[in-house]
Every structure is written in structure tokens, then in C-alpha cells.
């Protein structure tokens, strides 16, 4: 899921020259990162719907952009911002229509959903990291998914979260610390890792 300046340049140039053909290249280049974030932030039920809806919104936004604005785009953080906005909207709408299951059951809302610790109990036997990630508070979950599931540099994580780099870093490390305790604390035979997990880590 590496993003390079060359890839970015190629995609935005193609978009600027031919929006529709360029959009196919954009989807191909970023569908894995978009889908992975949709899946790990929004949950498995509607990940494909969410990814498709986000791409469509991206296209509709591009329809209103002039050539210079398209050439100045950084597609990956831009697309992921749209994914997360689309996801938040769908969660909000699901809240208005109680018959629908919300996309992100494991949000930050108090009460209701399982806590991280409860999720850890459930995941104990399978050590299902995905379940632990899904149960993180929203901001930590988004930060961890962006930084470590799809491998964004911290600057892009901050751009997507709309916060300074330092704040993004601390969301990532707090989420990671929580995951590390729960995940390694139950793995057996790595007892000392629980201790080391609490040591502040250097983020690249």
C-alpha cells in the first residue's frame, strides 16, 4: 500500500487530463487502502458499500475541481478523509433510523457497546486483533488503522484526522499501548512484553 510521489503524480495528471479514465486509475491505485480503512474503521458488514460510496463522493467532488486543484491533490489522505466523513454520516443516519444496524457499533458512545476489556475477553481464545481494534475508542481506532494497518506516515494521519502531528502521534501511541497490553497480555509466554508495552515508544 506504499504511496509514492511518482504514483501520486501519475494519478493526478491522468485525472486532470481525463477525469473518467483517470478515475479508474485512482480506484485501482487506492482501492486496497480505502477498503482496508472502511473495513477496519467501519466494520465488515458494510465495508464494500462504504468504499464504493466514498469513491463516488470523491468523483462528485472532482467534478467541481478545476485542473490546478486536481493537480495539487494528495489523493491518499484526501480519499481517506472522504471515507471517514462518509462513515460518520452513515453512522449518524443509522442513529436516526433505529431499525438499521449502525456501521460502527463500537464507537465512542457511552453505555451500550462492549468495552475494550469485554472485547478482549471475547477475543481471548482467537486473539482476534481485529476485534480489539474494532473496540478501541473511535479516534484511537482511526489513528491506529491509518498508521499501522495501511501504513500512512504520521503527517498524513494528522491530515486525515485534522489535527497537529503531535496529537496524531499521541492518538496512535495510546491506541497501540492499549492494544499491546490486551493482545500480548493474553498471548502467554511473553509476560515481560506487557511491561515493555508500557514504555513509551519512539514513533517513526
Amino acid at each position, binding site marked *: *500500500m506504499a504511496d509514492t510521489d511518482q504514483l501520486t503524480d501519475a494519478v493526478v495528471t491522468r485525472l486532470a487530463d481525463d*477525469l*473518467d*479514465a483517470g*478515475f*479508474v486509475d485512482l*480506484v*485501482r491505485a487506492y*482501492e*486496497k*487502502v*480505502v*477498503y*482496508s480503512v472502511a*473495513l*477496519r474503521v467501519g466494520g465488515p458488514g458494510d465495508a*464494500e458499500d462504504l*468504499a*464504493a460510496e466514498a*469513491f*463516488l463522493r470523491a*468523483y*462528485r467532488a472532482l*467534478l467541481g475541481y478545476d485542473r490546478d486543484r486536481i493537480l495539487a491533490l494528495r489523493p491518499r489522505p484526501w480519499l481517506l478523509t472522504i471515507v471517514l466523513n462518509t462513515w460518520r454520516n452513515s453512522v449518524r443516519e443509522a442513529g436516526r433510523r433505529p431499525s438499521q444496524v449502525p456501521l460502527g457499533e463500537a464507537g465512542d458512545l457511552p453505555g451500550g457497546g462492549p468495552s475494550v476489556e469485554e472485547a478482549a475477553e471475547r477475543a481471548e481464545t482467537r486473539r482476534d*486483533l*481485529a476485534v480489539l*481494534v474494532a473496540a478501541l475508542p473511535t479516534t484511537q481506532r482511526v489513528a*491506529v*488503522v491509518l498508521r*499501522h*494497518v*495501511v*501504513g500512512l506516515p504520521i503527517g498524513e494521519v494528522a491530515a486525515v484526522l485534522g489535527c497537529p502531528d503531535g496529537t496524531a502521534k499521541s492518538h496512535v501511541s495510546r491506541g*497501540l499501548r492499549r*492494544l*499491546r497490553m490486551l*493482545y*500480548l497480555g493474553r498471548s502467554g509466554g*511473553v509476560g515481560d*512484553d506487557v511491561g*515493555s508495552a508500557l*514504555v513509551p*515508544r*519512539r514513533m*517513526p
Partner: protein
Amino acid sequence: MTNNGSDPVVAALGGLAATAPTGLLDRVVSRWVRVPGPVGDLYVAFGAQGISYVRTAASVDDSAVEFTRSFRDRFARPLVPGERPPAGLVAALRTGRTRQLRYDLRGLTPFEVDVLTAAGRIPAGQARPYAWVAREIGRPGAVRAVGTALGRNPVPVLIPCHRVTRADGQVGEYVFGTPVKEAMLLAEHVDLGELRELAKARVFYIGSDTTGIVCFPTCAHARRITPPHRRGFRTVDQATEAGYRPCLHCRPALAASA
């Protein structure tokens, strides 16, 4: 001190990245093809959900660029050239059996979908009045709205809105213009001249005095009636008073039920 390369949690998180489903691109990006149609070539747009847009080549200046622009104006979705037509399209256009094709009508209102579904039941070579569609969908008062919904049909030719015509014997309006509608009906062997003559004589239904069944004039059953046994009627009520019952295939409805 661990680094990310050897941190088992970070390594495991990297494993949570997932390959996108193979169909994702096709859910986002639609394709277009150009295929032979009954009155010249057609541009057809389709996606994972079915056929979504049809225009005659003549109506878009014979240009894929113009078709793409028209699609974009209406749907705001990306459209690129397709490698081959959707399954069954070319054969359906050749035989006129377009009902089995899959259509993507997501942008339409339930009323519009009902109207197009009813229009889709009119067999090739036959015509029904706007009021018939309105009655078929249980909205007998919505005749004008039926006309509007047919005019917004995103897949004309395939969903045969051209088979809905005016009761007075004129073919009525069409998204590609009245002459194209006439040409399409003539290509399906609808006898427009006869329909106009009948309308002039205030005959809108044809009955058979041997079967006692009354039909729309273009119904296959009406066309089979030999001239000595043909009886013309102005209304279905008149026909029923004369002892006829409405055909179960073309379903001319009683005025009283409207």
C-alpha cells in the same frame, strides 16, 4: 526497545489490511458500449447493477464524448468505454425481447419505477394509452405524471416507453422526438395508419363477435380477428353492455373501475 519491524502487535496490525473485493471498481465506474438498435446505433451505459442509460447515437451527435457528458450530467458517475456489451443485450435488441435484461433504476422514484415496469410489459408491436399505464399501476388519476415519468425513462428503447401512445391515434411525445417514436413503432409493425383511422372513427377497442372478447386494437388477439367478425367500440363499457368481456392479455379496463 523494539522497532516496528519486530513489534508483534504492529506486525499483526499490518496483517489487518485487506484486498478490495474484485467487484468494487465496477460498482463505482460504469461502462459504455455502442450496439446496433432498431433505429440506428445505441449508446448503452451499464454497471454492476445493470443497464442504467440508453441514448440513440443520433441523439448525442453520434459521439461517445457527448454520450458521456449526458450520462455525467444525469448521474454524476464516472463512465469509461466497456470491452463488450452486457450479457444478452445484443440478442435482446435483435429479438426485441428486452424484458429479461437487468436494469439499474436506482435513481428513480418508486412511482417512476412502477410506470416503467408497467410499460415494460407491453409486447413488441403493440401500443397502450397513457391512461392504461396509470390504471395498471393503481394510479388512474395520474395520467400526466405517467407521461412525465415515461419521458424520464433512462433506458428508452430497452424499456419500451415508445409503446405508450395517445388515445387519439397520435403517437405522442418521445425523448428522441415524435418521428423516432413513429419509426420505432413502424419497425415493430404497428399499423399507425389504421390506429389513426380508427381513432378518427372514435373506435378505441376491437371485439370479436365469435369469442366475445374486447381488446386494444394492437393486441395480438385483436389482430387475429377476421374482418367479418371485428366489432369496434368507443369504450369498454359499451363493449360489456354488448356482452363482451375485456381481454386478459391486453387488459383494457372498465371505465367504472377507474
